[in-house]
């Protein structure tokens, strides 16, 4: 064993605190350290994942308290894949932002601290087995996200951040309420324990708890009425942060929501609710996206739509559906991050980030533009890129579950998505550059980061078997509630002996 899941939280957190200290000694270290940490985590995650796929879930107990009482970390195939994905995205985004704020040491320091916090929080959300612990991680993520959103002083980023904060703090209170409810009913905070005792809860309280959870976690999962902050935050945050939101934070939010709905309670109607809310999110945000005139807002709205799609896929509830949802999640993480990363270079030197300002960039930034197009094709779901498989598996899962109307709806919404992405691609390649824009060449590290994402898209597109085996196991792991409970609780018993 190379290490245990706790390292995923401890190491980056430690790194976050070490950055300012090391920065005093060697300025370059603040850039190198996060990368090293993330690389280590990535290696660790992949090793652990491989192990988990063969031997089964790893449950780590913190501070020696047995699971029903203490905090535990669960590295199951499901959580493991998500954590690996997040760390991978974190690493790629680190490569991309290695030269971020090259001249401004203080700013860069802040950025890397907050970024590490963000990764810590998100990975923590996924790995933890305790709802209150999850709440804390959510808050860590949120606060660092607020700060990262407000990173640029000269833009309207404070406004975006404040909106995020208002909505975020409101709903975190609801999350707390939900936790209170559960605790008052069951007297436990451990997820597995809650899951095993959920039937003891009064049904009204259970529903109430679910509702509060949905509201509390929906903010990070970006479901419809709670996602007003998303376009603002994505658009105003620095490019890599936007990518991190799309690639890391949302995934954590969706995970939390899915965990609550699939494992904690078996309230009837939640799956249908997921579908309804996912469809609503998708439809409204895609409709908003097509009318955007700013690139990043468009990408943000599109991100919302994608997450809606993921929620619908989860809502199907069958193993196939979850498999498809995971596929879509991964595709979205990779594709949308690529779009954010390359998109921020396409509109690098423009103040307002209008889509029209990407005109003619294909000539000046060929690689970036190509990768943007690739990302767009992947997100839209054009074969033979990765997005297609996700969409296809999702469709066939829905068809197996006899949800044809939903497929039709999703497809018609996808049409909208296709239109606005192709509009941008057209602009990039076939319009004349606006004279006041000076294109900014991407730095080498940025190109490497983006190209890595592009290559991943192509690989998954041509050879989906690469990940589908893992994903099948992950979806089985999510569905097999009993095994989860048994894994977590039995570990506790094993340790006491």
């Amino acid at each position: 064993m190379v290490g245990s899941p706790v390292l995923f939280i401890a190491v980056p957190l430690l790194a976050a605190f070490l950055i300012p200290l090391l920065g005093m000694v060697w300025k370059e270290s603040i850039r190198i350290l996060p990368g090293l940490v993330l690389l280590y985590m990535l290696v660790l995650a992949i090793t652990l994942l491989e192990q988990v796929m063969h031997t089964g879930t790893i449950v780590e107990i913190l501070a020696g308290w047995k699971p029903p009482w203490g905090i535990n970390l669960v590295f199951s195939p499901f959580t493991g894949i998500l954590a690996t994905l997040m760390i991978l995205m974190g690493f790629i985004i680190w490569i991309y932002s290695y030269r971020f704020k090259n001249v401004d040491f203080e700013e860069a320091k802040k950025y890397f601290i907050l970024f590490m916090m963000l990764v810590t929080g998100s990975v923590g959300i996924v790995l933890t087995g305790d709802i209150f612990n999850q709440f804390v991680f959510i808050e860590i993520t949120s606060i660092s996200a607020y700060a990262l959103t407000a990173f640029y002083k000269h833009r309207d980023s404070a406004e975006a951040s404040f909106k995020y904060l208002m909505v975020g703090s409101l709903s975190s209170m609801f999350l707390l309420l939900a936790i209170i409810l559960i605790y008052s009913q069951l007297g436990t905070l451990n997820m597995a324990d809650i899951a095993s005792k959920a039937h003891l809860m009064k049904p009204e309280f259970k529903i109430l708890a679910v509702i509060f959870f949905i509201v509390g976690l929906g903010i990070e999962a970006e479901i419809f009425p709670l996602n007003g902050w998303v376009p603002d935050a994505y658009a105003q945050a620095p490019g890599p942060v936007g990518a991190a939101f799309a690639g890391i934070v949302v995934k954590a939010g969706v995970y939390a929501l899915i965990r609550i709905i699939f494992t904690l309670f078996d309230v009837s109607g939640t799956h249908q609710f997921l579908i309804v809310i996912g469809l609503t999110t998708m439809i409204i945000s895609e409709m908003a996206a097509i009318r955007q005139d700013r690139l990043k807002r468009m990408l943000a709205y599109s991100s919302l739509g994608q997450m809606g799609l993921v929620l619908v896929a989860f809502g199907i509830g069958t193993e196939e559906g979850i498999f498809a949802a995971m596929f879509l999640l991964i595709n979205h993480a990779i594709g949308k991050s690529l779009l954010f990363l390359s998109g921020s270079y396409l509109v690098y030197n423009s103040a307002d980030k209008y889509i029209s300002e990407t005109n003619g960039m294909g000539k000046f930034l060929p690689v970036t533009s190509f990768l943007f197009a690739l990302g767009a094709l992947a997100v839209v779901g054009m074969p033979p890129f990765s997005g297609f498989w996700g969409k296809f598996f999702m469709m066939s899962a829905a068809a197996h579950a006899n949800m044809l109307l939903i497929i039709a709806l999703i497809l018609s919404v996808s049409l909208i998505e296709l239109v606005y992405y192709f509009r941008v691609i057209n602009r990039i390649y076939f319009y004349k550059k606006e004279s006041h824009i000076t294109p900014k060449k991407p730095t080498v590290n940025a190109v490497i980061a983006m190209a890595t994402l592009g290559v991943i898209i192509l690989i998954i597109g041509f050879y989906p078997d690469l990940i589908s085996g893992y994903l099948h196991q992950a979806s089985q792991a999510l569905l097999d509630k009993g095994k989860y409970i048994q894994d977590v609780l039995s570990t506790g018993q094993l340790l006491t002996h």
Partner: protein
Amino acid sequence: MNFTLFDLKIVEYSFFITAILVIMIGLYGALVKKSLIKVVIGLSIFDSGINLLLISIGYITSGTAPIFSPALVKDMPLTLENIKKLSEGMVDPVPQALVLTAIVIGFGVTAVALSLVIRLYRHHQTLNIDEIKNLKW
């Protein structure tokens, strides 16, 4: 009307009622007031209300602190029955721990919020939330 019962209930529910009142006040502040400062204050109040609610769950009327002091334990052997008996009148400590964490988080959020308010004021020269709408649709 059963006087004693009512008397007891009102004490027991008073925490809840107060907490909900505080939450409502907080919501009013956060959702209706136009000044950013007042919104932040409202959020804080809302926060406090939730914390109050959280504490009230673990609270038992006229309970004792959840500490096994030597005076309390005296010479009792630490069997499961004894612990159960002892802890009967005790207030549940977990909500309190949670609340402590929540307060800290709330503090952090409020601090970030206030700093954002300062930034917003510098940027927009106003604290009216309706005028800070550069980002929309």
